């Protein structure tokens, strides 16, 4: 099995966000919201860090 860096990030963020959403909030609506928030932070943070590394190199 091979994964690109980005697909690995997406899978990692998806599964981790599901667990965080369920365990860190009490009501289902807030679970979905917090899970989505975590997912966006994981993926957005990775993309931002990637651009920072690109900027440092150039």
């Amino acid at each position, binding site marked *: *099995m*091979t*994964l690109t860096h980005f697909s*690995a990030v997406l*899978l*990692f963020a998806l*599964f*981790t966000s*599901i*667990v*965080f959403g*369920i*365990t860190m*909030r*009490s009501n289902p609506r*807030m679970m979905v*919201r*917090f899970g989505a*928030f975590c997912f966006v932070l994981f993926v957005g943070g990775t993309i931002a860090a990637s651009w920072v590394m690109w900027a440092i190199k150039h």
Partner: protein
Amino acid sequence: MTTNAQAPAQPLKKPAARAATKSPVSPAVALFAGWLIPGAGHLLLKKPIRAALLFVSVAAMFGIGMALEGKIYTPATGDLLDVLGFAADLGSGALYIVTRMLDLGHSSVQIAIADYGTKFIAVAGLLNIVAAVDAHSLASGRKPL
């Protein structure tokens, strides 16, 4: 959106209030079941959707890690970092135990992508510990059912 949507100071529940929301399942049983089989603690507490999501998440991360030829840590290497990796892997419960019993997985990282696999396996274990502790909190009444 804030990360602490539930933060507004909820006073700690008094023992009487906790007892009212307490589950008939023992917290220790929920914790152990949740560790052994991902999601089982929530299933015992009659939360089947949460249980299924937790099982799929942890099992998928573990499975992807194995498919990426990630390293399975063992306790007796003498390296402190390996012991930490072992503790994380052991968090997966039966998934880790069965993997070791069947002698699956790799004892070292042999290809570049396997390093991702190693992290997926370790994080699957850590997430399962978080889920098991959540089941314990639900059973003890610390978190509302």
